[in-house]
């Protein structure tokens, strides 16, 4: 499971499995890198996609790695969590936009299955309001800008100022920030006290650069 003190780089994979295999091979070996099976990848390949990622990453690391299944669960938390836990994921995501009942059920089911729960706050204006309503806290809160949003509407920003507030109020949760792509942006999110930085675009367009970024990152957090 995730260590509270450590910083992590999460890399999201959304392409076809053949390409993903090559990309994973390019990554540096480190436990601080988290592999994410993106939503489109899960919807295309299902459980088998997650298992494939897990196997490749395990082969590379020579021990079980950390795999996030980006389920973006909206309903029927139970069924979906059980399925991805079976497939070998170490964490699953749920939408902060989902009904509170679903998020509660999702977090409970994650604990039961022994995996980490992540709540994705995409398009949620005040993540606080949602955290307050929950019976139990998730392991990780993801602050997130959607890709479609990013492309069409540049003035919206990731609310980095929220990180401190959430951590101040709920000490235990880890914060993950999705959206930054360059080394500078990743540094900025860590500077603002986030625990996990999620990247995907640069990897999508130039896998080699991201391998470089991953190496830079590892040097930085040592």
């Amino acid at each position: 499971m995730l260590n509270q003190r450590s910083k992590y780089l999460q890399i999201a994979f959304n392409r076809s499995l053949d390409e993903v295999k090559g990309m994973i091979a390019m990554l540096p070996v480190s436990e601080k890198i988290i592999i994410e099976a993106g939503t489109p990848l899960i919807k295309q390949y299902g459980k088998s996609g997650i298992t494939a990622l897990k196997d490749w990453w395990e082969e590379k690391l020579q021990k079980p790695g950390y795999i996030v299944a980006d389920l973006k669960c909206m309903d029927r938390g139970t069924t979906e969590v059980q399925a991805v836990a079976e497939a070998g994921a170490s964490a699953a995501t749920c939408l902060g936009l989902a009904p509170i009942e679903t998020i509660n059920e999702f977090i409970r089911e994650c604990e039961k299955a022994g995996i980490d729960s992540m709540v994705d706050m995409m398009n949620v204006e005040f993540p606080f309001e949602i955290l307050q309503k929950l019976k139990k806290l998730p392991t990780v809160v993801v602050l997130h800008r959607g890709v479609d949003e990013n492309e069409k509407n540049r003035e919206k920003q990731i609310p980095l100022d929220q990180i401190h507030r959430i951590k101040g109020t709920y000490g235990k949760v880890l914060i993950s920030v999705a959206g930054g792509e360059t080394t500078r942006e990743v540094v900025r999110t860590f500077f603002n006290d986030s625990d996990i930085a999620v990247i995907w675009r640069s990897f999508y367009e130039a896998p080699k650069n991201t391998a470089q970024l991953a190496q830079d990152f590892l040097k930085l957090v040592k």
Partner: protein
Amino acid sequence: MQLQNNKNKFNPFSLVIIVLFIAFSINPIFGGVLIVAIIFFLVKNPKSLTTYFSNYLQMTSKLQENLTENNSDIFKELNTNTQPIIPANIFNVLSKKVRLEKRKKYLHIALNSTLEEAGDIISQLPVSDRILIEAGTPLIKIYGTEAISRIKALAPAGTYIVADNKCTDLAAREVEMMANAGANASTCLGVAPIETIDSFIEECQKFNIDSMVDMMNVENALSVLKKLKKLPDVVMLHRGVDETEFSAEKQIPFYQIKQIKGNYDVLVAVAGGDTIREAQRAIFNDADIVVVWKNFYQSSNDTAKLAESFLQEIK
């Protein structure tokens, strides 16, 4: 047994061939004219051909089931290994054009458990163009796009297939995937960023499939619709399963149906519970599509009954 029954049934295709034969024996020119007429008729009404083939496909799938019941092990293996995708794929071209019509009332059946059970349910359903079959979100997330192509293969050819992918981001990629897998419609969440819904609707039009916006956990569907650049084909009013289980006092906002239909030219789908009376209530409140799932999720026994009484009672 099944095979014989089917042979005794009235078969339009063999009748056409016999008539052609007689026409040719009377006068070859007359026969030629008749062939041209038949081709013309088929081009004008491609659906008549589809129903014929759907009957045929159902017959073959029933036959396969009978075989599996009799000698279990070998045929089970055969069943899992050889997917009957090939015959259905031929009709992908035809059925991609199937879109919803404004004046009809539809029954939308969501399949959420496993592909085996999905096959079981589909085989019991009556054949009708007013029945939509949905590959539910859990199915898509567990089996991937294969779930859609498998369901499409299991269902009678030309059946309208909905991919409930509940898109929240990267709309372009997801719509493309679902359309290529053979879906006739794809869903997007109403709570997703407006940019995503806009690009989702645009992509759906590009791939010639229907766009459905799922208003789950949206308080006021109208305020979302107002912000969109283009309208979706279907607006879905929806209560989540988890919500329904844990807080029963929340209700489907039936009054919103008239509001939406009064202001916008869209079809409205409602998750209508699991009895025929609830379905009737939704239709009475002016919904165009009734979504049912609970019954189907638990057992496939009452499936055919509900579907049949829906077809009979709601025209």
